[in-house]
């Protein structure tokens, strides 16, 4: 029998028991709707969480340290026999260039941190100074910054942390455009024998105020009060903690950095770059590591939502079994007739499968629409609530096209599986018996 004939017969049979088939189809629709609503909630929440985290720009960043540096000793180092500090190369300019050459890397900025004194309006404040890489200009955590980012990578401009700025002026906004003087420890000369340190001072223009710490205040990174462009800070030859370390070691070495901040063009490259850096025997850390557990949480959440959503569909599949078993009993004679005039067992089986699949298709499509409407309703309710809290609206539920398509396919699949028993029963019917049956 051709597929077209099969579905014509199935459609005819379903029309003949309209109410029963409609009820079963609605049952499937409710099952699919609950599944779609649950899954879209999971997807929506995950997207929401990712979106919030991505805003910080942390995912585009990998922090690299050398295992030689005793301050950067990994707590887990003992547990990792391959992590031998002596094999980890120094984090010098050569390493910096090597990492910068990795694909997808936008900028490799050394960490520059130093204590400094800020002079403004004849008042002085002792604080922490840090370099802020040029590539941080797009970072979303700087979105809420007042004023602007540095005008160039080597500008003699400063961005102040707001709480610190309040110490300089009760109304920090007034500071933008004003000049401050920074006093700092300048490292004079180099080489293995030693260097001199002297006090220097430099004038900077305040261009911006920052509420949050860059990189979401990750570890100790960049947790400072005054930020200047990293290149400017490097040119200032600030005395760095690593400098003493270099001095005390017997073997003379190049100047090293305590940490490199590697910025990727997009977050998708972070994992590959992190792996590549680890292969160079450096320690690497990124927020991807921190979100791994979060992603696992969402995978588990999705699974649970999927299981709960599927429960209704499982119940609906029993309704399909019931409907089709009834149909087999009711149409016993008809099945006998069909067999007598030439239907094979598999023809009979396929007719019932086609009926199950048709119910699955209609139920699936109805269910996706229903699930989407439920999602809209929940979104609307949630956004009304958010609006009352004066928070921006969020799309909590999301029905992507793949979910809609997968839900319909799944509904058809479940229906066909539910049809196995009734179809086999119909196919097994003995035509002689079935024709005798009145």
């Amino acid at each position, binding site marked *: 029998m051709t597929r077209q004939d099969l579905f014509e017969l199935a459609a005819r049979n379903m029309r003949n028991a309209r109410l029963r088939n409609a009820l079963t189809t609605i049952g499937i629709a409710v099952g699919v709707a609950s599944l779609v609503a649950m899954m879209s909630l999971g997807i929506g929440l995950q997207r929401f969480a990712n979106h919030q985290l991505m805003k910080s720009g942390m995912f585009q960043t990998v922090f690299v340290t050398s295992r030689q540096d005793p301050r950067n000793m990994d707590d887990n180092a003992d547990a990792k026999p391959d992590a031998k500090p002596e094999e980890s190369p120094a984090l010098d300019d050569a390493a910096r260039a090597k990492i910068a050459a990795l694909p997808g890397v936008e900028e490799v900025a050394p960490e520059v941190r130093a204590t400094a004194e800020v002079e403004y309006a004849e008042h002085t404040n002792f604080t922490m100074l840090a370099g802020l890489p040029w590539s941080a200009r797009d970072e979303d955590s700087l979105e809420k910054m007042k004023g602007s980012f540095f005008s160039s990578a080597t500008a003699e401009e400063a961005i102040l942390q707001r709480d610190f700025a309040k110490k300089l002026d009760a109304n920090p906004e007034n500071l933008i455009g004003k000049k401050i003087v920074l006093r700092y420890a300048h490292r004079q000369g180099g080489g293995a024998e030693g260097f001199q340190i002297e006090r220097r001072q430099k004038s900077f223009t305040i261009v911006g105020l920052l509420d949050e710490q860059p990189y979401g205040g990750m570890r100790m990174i960049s947790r400072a009060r005054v930020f200047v462009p990293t290149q400017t800070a490097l040119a200032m030859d600030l005395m760095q903690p690593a400098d003493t370390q270099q001095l005390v070691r017997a073997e003379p070495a190049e100047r090293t950095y305590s940490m490199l901040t590697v910025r990727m063009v997009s977050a998708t490259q972070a994992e590959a770059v992190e792996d590549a850096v680890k292969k160079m025997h450096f320690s690497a850390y990124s927020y991807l590591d921190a979100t791994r557990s979060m992603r696992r949480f969402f995978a588990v959440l999705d699974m649970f939502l999927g299981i709960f959503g599927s429960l209704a569909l499982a119940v609906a599949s029993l309704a399909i079994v019931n409907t089709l078993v009834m149909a087999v009993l009711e149409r016993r004679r008809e099945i006998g007739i069909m067999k007598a005039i030439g239907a094979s*067992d598999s023809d009979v089986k396929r007719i019932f499968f086609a009926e199950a699949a048709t119910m699955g298709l209609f139920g699936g499509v109805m269910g996706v629409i229903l699930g989407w409407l439920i999602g809209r309703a929940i979104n609307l309710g949630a956004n009304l609530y958010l609006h009352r809290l004066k928070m921006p609206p969020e799309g909590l539920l999301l029905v992507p096209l793949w979910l809609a398509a997968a839900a319909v396919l799944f509904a058809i699949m479940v229906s066909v599986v539910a049809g196995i028993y009734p179809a086999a029963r119909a196919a097994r019917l003995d035509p002689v018996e079935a024709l005798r049956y009145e």
Partner: protein
Amino acid sequence: MSEASAPGKQPVIIPAVEALAASRYYQMGEATVRAVDEVTFTLARGEFAALLGPSGSGKSTLLNLLAGLDRLTAGNIRVQGAELAKMDSEALARYRRLTVGMIFQSFNLVPTMTLADNVELPLRFAEFPRAERRDRVHELLAGVGLAGRAQHKPSQLSGGEQQRAAIARALANRPGLLLADEPTGNLDSRNGQEVMALLEQLNSQMGVTVLMVTHDPALAARYARRALHMADGRMLAAEVAQ
């Protein structure tokens, strides 16, 4: 179990039906019911035979065996060269579809389908080309005088009309053998005669071999050219009618 030769006119070379010790036994608890017990007979091509016997004699079971609806316990049946004993269920379905047509005492039309749909059903199973189906259905219904009733449901028709529609359906795939199980059993005499006249016409004009089960010797004597008698599952004797 004697084998009768076909009536005089033309010599028979290939028989339409050949039953060789065809048997169908049922197990009823301890007892074995020999519904059809080593039945051997031959039907020539184009023959019109009646199968007579009291109820329970096994004539319906034999007809079901010939129709490919029931399976042989032992022996063999050959219909136009095809051996039923060797067929699997798929091959038997194909055999029922293309080689035999069957009509029943209770017509067995699908009540929810129109006559046209009923007649189209075997064409669907045979994957008859869709483009030619409508014409074929019309031709079949016209052939039994029901062209105007194509869109009627069986319940809207008289018994005679229903049986004629069933005949049209049985002929859909042009089978060589038509099996009729008490075709006039549910009909009044006028409708019964109409149906018998149609069967006779099919037999004489289209050369369809007809085997009709009946318990009415008068009917057998009037239409069949040969009568086969069964009792207790065995073929008694074959006699030439008329």
